[in-house]
């Protein structure tokens, strides 16, 4: 039979397409083994636009450190310190003038000037990191969380260049063979990362999925210094707090629409 190169390639393409699209659930159904499906956990929290409100007045140095420690322990974040500029951080502190540049001035209240501000990924409603990611390893979920899929990250670091908040860290080295070489990762239920991927705060998506509060919120819950909730829900705690207090966001002029608010 004569077959042109063109038609051969067409058939080849179509047949690989057919092979590639069968999911494990399809395979089960095809083998007549019954129907399997995936579902979200009914215990999970659902929202339309998750946000955090950080009440800076209620956060002293100790509670701030508590929040950072809780997050980094739960997510197996290695503590490299500042060595070689290879620090990994999901949540960290910085001075007011660095967190809110352009709003500082010479005569800033002493209390504000020296205070360590708790900073983390802003889970922007208009996230520039998502726009630039070539593999959609970072994307915006329907509940507003800017998620990272470590499986897909190719380590190009476009997102790090795009993020105006410095919320992303790159794994220059394999945490397993460096920081966790002689010690166990603190949380055996959560993965570590590998060399060559970018990581950041995921707003505890894995905890929200089972109905738990983000780790930083939980760590400081006695002081209620960080409030978590859905901005689209007018009766949520975040909306109430924002209604009662004046709050600012980091670099709003950039138009990324951050979802982390600071009561100063």
């Amino acid at each position: 039979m004569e077959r042109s190169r063109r038609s051969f390639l067409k058939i080849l393409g179509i047949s690989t397409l057919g092979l590639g699209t069968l999911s494990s659930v399809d395979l089960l159904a095809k083998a007549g083994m019954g129907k399997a499906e995936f579902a979200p956990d009914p215990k999970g929290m659902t929202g339309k636009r998750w946000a955090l409100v950080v009440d800076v007045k209620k956060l002293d140095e100790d509670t701030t450190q508590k929040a950072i420690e809780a997050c980094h322990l739960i997510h197996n974040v290695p503590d490299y310190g500042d060595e070689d500029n290879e620090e990994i951080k999901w949540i960290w502190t910085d001075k007011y003038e660095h967190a809110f540049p352009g709003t500082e001035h010479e005569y800033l209240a002493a209390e504000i000037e020296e205070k360590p501000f708790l900073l983390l990924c802003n889970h922007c409603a208009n996230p520039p990191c998502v726009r630039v990611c070539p593999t959609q390893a970072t994307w915006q979920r329907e509940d507003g969380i800017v998620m990272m899929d470590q499986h897909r990250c190719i380590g190009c670091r476009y997102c790090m260049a795009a993020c105006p908040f410095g919320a992303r860290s790159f794994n220059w080295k394999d945490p397993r063979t460096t920081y966790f070489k002689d010690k166990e990762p603190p949380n055996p239920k959560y993965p570590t990362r590998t060399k060559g991927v970018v990581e950041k705060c995921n707003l505890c998506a894995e905890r929200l999925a089972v109905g738990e509060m983000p780790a930083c919120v939980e760590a400081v819950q006695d002081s209620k210094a960080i409030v978590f909730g859905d901005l689209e829900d007018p009766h949520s705690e975040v909306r109430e707090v924002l209604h009662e207090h004046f709050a600012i966001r980091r670099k709003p002029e950039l138009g990324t629409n951050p979802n982390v608010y600071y009561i100063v």
Partner: protein
Amino acid sequence: MYNKGLVITGIVIFVVFFTSPFLIGLVKSGPPPEPELSPKAKLAKQCVEAKEYMVESHMQMLNDWRNEAVREGKRIYVATDGKEYTVSLQNTCMDCHSNKSKFCDQCHNYAAVNPYCWECHIAPKEKL
């Protein structure tokens, strides 16, 4: 055909030489290893789906589990028998199959596949 004998012997030598890695492998590698079940897995009698399916398609399933959990946020797997499982390699699969070296690695080494799950996911501690 000129030099029939030489040409055919040449072809035979060529074929044997170029397939020798496979032939040697066939002889040397022996029968495939049987994955060993941990006591907990033995007790459970069945995995999330039937054994044959798991043997054949666990890689496809893990791929789907990963996508559904991470990207779709669907972290419950309702199996064909109606039982529900948490979609997690590290916390569900490895909770039962806690003997990674005998259950996973043996076959993967035999088949010379090198899944990079464990560069990030934490493998259970095994008593050696």
